[in-house]
């Protein structure tokens, strides 16, 4: 498998706090990679370096290299907005905008200059179909995005991210605020999307990682302890700490 994200010797500091320590990793293209580990271990922090969302936190300092498709995304030549267009993100809490379902999806394309009504209609439909939401909302696209359920809102947020045609989709504990049935739907959706997108998901739930991902990365205290193919990591971990964690001895 080709790797799309390459991380070389990455260190990240929040002020004095050393949040990520010497991270080296490759993330394969068109597959699902899951980040697991206890709270505060740095998995969300690493995820947020891929679309530079950490830039917004004052006092963040980065050393080392993160390359996406061969480009060092922390070099001065990189345009953050273009990067974020290519690396979409779905958050822990569904965060639809206080606008209609249609306008939520069309928000990204409009930002990037698409105004043609027909083209927007088309994008809205394909994005909602990709997020397996079209059938449920196609008759009331003009309704507020708050009128649908939490699980539907999260799929709306996925559709919204897909509407700007990213290569990579980051999911930051995207199912942790949802009920089991909505969670299952999103997991199925991720399975379908992985043929077209590279998906990186942070999850608190080891079973979720085991169910949906092809590669799993285990984090502990800002370090990557182990990463390998999911089956390998869960059945035959090489590091004692990984084994302790997946067998439920801590975390």
């Amino acid at each position, binding site marked *: 498998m080709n790797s799309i994200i390459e991380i070389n010797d990455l260190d990240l500091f929040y002020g004095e706090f050393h949040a990520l320590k010497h991270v080296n990793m490759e993330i394969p293209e068109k597959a699902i990679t899951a980040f697991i580990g206890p709270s505060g271990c740095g998995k969300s922090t690493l995820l947020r370096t891929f*679309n530079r*969302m950490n830039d*917004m936190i004052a006092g963040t300092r980065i050393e080392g290299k993160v390359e996406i498709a061969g480009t060092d995304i922390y070099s001065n030549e990189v345009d953050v*907005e*273009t*990067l*974020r*267009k290519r690396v*979409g*993100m779905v*958050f822990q*809490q569904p*965060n*639809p*905008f*206080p*606008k209609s379902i249609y306008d939520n999806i069309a*928000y*990204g394309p409009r*930002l*990037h200059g698409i105004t043609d009504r027909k083209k927007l209609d088309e994008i809205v439909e394909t994005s909602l179909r990709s997020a397996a939401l079209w059938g449920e909302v196609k008759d009331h696209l003009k309704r507020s995005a*708050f009128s649908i359920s939490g699980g539907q809102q999260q799929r709306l*947020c996925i559709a*919204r*991210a897909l509407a*700007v045609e990213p290569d990579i989709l980051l999911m930051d504990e995207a199912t942790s605020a949802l009920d089991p049935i909505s969670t299952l739907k999103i997991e199925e959706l991720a399975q379908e999307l992985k043929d077209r997108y590279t998906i990186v998901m942070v999850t608190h739930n080891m079973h979720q990682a085991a169910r949906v991902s092809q590669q799993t990365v285990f984090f502990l205290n800002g370090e990557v302890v182990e990463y390998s193919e999911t089956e390998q990591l869960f059945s035959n971990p090489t590091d004692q700490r990984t084994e302790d964690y997946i067998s439920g001895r801590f975390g």
Partner: protein
Amino acid sequence: MSQSLDRQKAKPHLAEEWVGKIYTFLCILFLITTIFSIVYFVASKGLSTFIVNHVNVIDLLTGLKWLPDGEPALFGALPFIFGSFSTSILAACLAAPLGFCAAVFMVEISPKFGRKYLQPVIELLAGIPSVVYGFVGLSVIVPFFRDVFPGQGIGIAAGALVLSIMILPTITTIATDALAALPKGLKEGSYALGSTRWQTIYRIVLPTTLPALMTGIVLGIARAFGEALAVQMVIGNAPHIPRSLFESASTLTSAITLSMGNTAMGSLANNALWSLALILMLMTFVFVFIVRFLEGRSKL
């Protein structure tokens, strides 16, 4: 069960309960009585112009001449109404963009510096007495306008400018609170789609906080509408509708404060002033209702 559930033992608490209830009830009764008395008093005085003195309501609202001592006496309040509305709305137009941008700076761009230094400074503006504003307006703004624009410098423009500074704290504080209360996820969601800071402010922050911003603006207009002293000092107080922003004009409040000492209680001229006060009061009620309406809408 060592504690007794006897009625006797509980009595002191019962008494406390009743004393508290009666005391708070008396306080609220006093407040309500006061408010109703004021409204009744102003209304009865203000309406007697029409009922006792048979002045036509329409004439008062649309008449252009205010001659309480004339033969016949004329009570056209339109110049005052026009003055009040034009100064306060113009003031809001000046203060709203300033207040919103200041709030954006304090919340979005430089929260540390903004919260620690700018917010207290802006709130300090609210504590300056209106006579000081008027005095500064009279000695700085009026001469400046006199030099730069044709006319005496006094008028709607000077009044609106002084008022805009007076209502700036109201608008800024409400806008700051609204921006700070915006869920963090909304902005992150917008940034994550590749929007710039300004696109996020323009497309997400502004539309979402608009009802709250409008509340601030309406409260600002209400304050400007009722302000008397500062406006009176810089507006010129000529009882007619000016043809330019730099020509002497009057507001409802300035008309009342200027003439109230010169009329005898119960006379027609005095009653007419009460009618102006009634208009002021009713307008304030309208503003309060608008604010209530907007607040209801701002809940998502």
